[in-house]
């Protein structure tokens, strides 16, 4: 069962749904009765992407297609990758990212849609020894869109992979990252922020499998959900037998800002090795009303005080991004959304 297969075969029964454990909170089978027609080629102007100004190398896929980003051994690169949907059709995209030994890449990826499209993106990301990739994803889909991004990340020992996904949700939005972690001082950061309002839905699903000794995984995901929106976090870290001295940390913290907002969280640490250092924390709560009063007592109006406290809450995730210019873009983006 997969959305990619459903799109290829045009068979709705292939859609993942409630009966698939990994999709029970993002039920596409129950949502989509009839697949939209395949998207048409789009020839018009798609405007500016959120990271356009930070890089010269732009890869733009509109209504599907393929892209490939290669960085040669020891080289440094900075690339923008835009996955754009125009109209209300269905399409799939495929992206391959390949970093040779010691290569470094900053990948600035965005999901942009303008209607009730159904989009699936497959990414295959490979890092050779000593390669460093920071992947920043801004998923700013249209509220009617269904958008699923699925990345398979293959790391060699000593590779360094940092990821931060910032998402505002859509009718159904899912960002999935599956990491094969070989240990051997390879290191993974797998962060996320979701900022949801209206009836938006955003699903952050990650699976990291540690297969060798001395691997590091650090995850911090924070979400703020208002109105009738719904956030989903499924974080799974598996430490295989023999993957000793693995250091795995997972944190997921969400704030519900209304009675009808919802967060479904399933943090899982599956440890089969003996000598590991693991920690996880998962909290779902409300905004700190005492802190809110304190800010208002100092003269800050309620709406601004709420925006400020939310900004600070998710800011702790944004601060972990290495690429300062991307940090700035995301902070500004979040600030506007919170005050919009």
């Amino acid at each position, binding site marked *: 069962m997969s959305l990619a297969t459903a799109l290829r075969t045009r068979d709705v029964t292939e859609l993942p749904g409630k009966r698939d454990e990994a999709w029970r909170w993002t039920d596409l089978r129950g949502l989509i009765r009839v697949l939209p027609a395949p998207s048409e080629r789009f020839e018009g102007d798609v405007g500016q992407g959120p990271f356009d100004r930070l890089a010269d190398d732009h890869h733009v896929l509109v209504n599907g297609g393929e892209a490939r980003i290669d960085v040669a051994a020891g080289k440094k690169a900075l690339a923008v990758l835009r996955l754009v949907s125009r109209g209300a059709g269905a399409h799939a995209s495929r992206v391959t990212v390949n970093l040779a030994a010691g290569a470094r890449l900053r990948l600035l990826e965005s999901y942009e849609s303008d209607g009730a499209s159904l989009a699936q993106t497959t990414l295959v990301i490979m890092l050779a020894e000593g390669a460093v990739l920071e992947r920043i994803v801004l998923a700013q889909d249209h509220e009617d869109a269904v958008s699923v991004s699925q990345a398979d990340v293959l790391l060699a020992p000593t590779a360094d992979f940092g990821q931060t996904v910032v998402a505002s949700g859509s009718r159904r939005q899912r960002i999935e990252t599956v990491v094969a972690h070989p240990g051997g001082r390879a290191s993974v950061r797998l962060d996320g922020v979701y900022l949801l309002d209206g009836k938006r839905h955003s699903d952050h699903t990650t699976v990291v499998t540690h297969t060798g000794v001395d691997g590091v995984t650090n995850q911090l995901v924070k979400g703020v959900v208002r109105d009738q929106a719904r956030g989903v976090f499924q974080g799974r870290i598996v430490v295989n037998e023999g993957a000793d001295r693995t250091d795995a940390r997972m944190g997921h913290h969400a704030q519900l800002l209304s009675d009808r907002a919802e967060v479904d969280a399933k943090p899982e640490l599956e440890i089969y090795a003996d000598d590991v250092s693991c920690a996880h924390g998962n909290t779902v709560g409300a905004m*700190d*009303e*005492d*802190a809110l*009063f*304190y*800010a*208002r*007592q*100092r*003269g*800050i*109006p*309620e709406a*601004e*005080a709420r925006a*400020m*406290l939310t*900004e*600070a*809450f998710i*800011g*702790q995730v944004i601060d972990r991004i290495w690429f300062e210019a991307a940090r700035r873009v995301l902070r500004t983006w979040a600030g506007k959304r919170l005050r919009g």
Partner: protein
Amino acid sequence: MLSISNLHAAVEGKEILKGLTLDVPAGEVHAIMGPNGAGKSTLSYVLTGRQGYEITGGGTTLDGEDLLALEPNERAARGVFLSFQYPLEIPGVPALTFIRTALNAQKKARGEPEITAPAFLKLAREKAALLKIDFDMLKRALNVGFSGGEKKRMEIFQMAMLSPRFLILDETDSGLDIDALRIVSEGVNALRSPDRAMLVITHYQRLLDYIKPDRVHVLAGGRIVASGGPELALELERDGYDRYARAA
């Protein structure tokens, strides 16, 4: 300036303030003393508009305006400032950012121009030096990981930066050693002026050696049960609150 008349207030259905009447004219410093649980902090929260405090009778005006009808931030913009007994932590918001946001929000509400970044920093450096606050501390998240004494000092720093007109100090002396107490009191005294007034809430007489009150009131059982000059504080220090607790 501030006029409280026959104020009744309840928390979770339980009446805590039971007909409190008090006038604090401009230019004066009034101390409120009383046993634990008398309702001193409740009074400070009612005056500043904290949620969960229900006004069940009476009223309060500031310069003739109905104070209790205003939002907490509107009261702040009119110049009401509370130095909290237990200041809150604001994770992720640097102290300077927080205070600048507050100052500009107040100015905006009053129709004044915003303070520029350089002018703000200059003011902050000046006030930090007076209160012997390390400037680097102001770049840290407000009150997060600060000691009790540091938090109290930050309250007075915020007060100095916002220069309010009606100041409420709720047990500002607790958690301060004698040096810090002197510095903080100097900060408070610097704000004494003919167009400002203060309500100094304290459990102990000690603070009043530094911030000399014009009037002293005893709050017990949700009411002002005695009022007098500074000598009343000394008498309370000597004899305790027993007599008043019984009277309440």
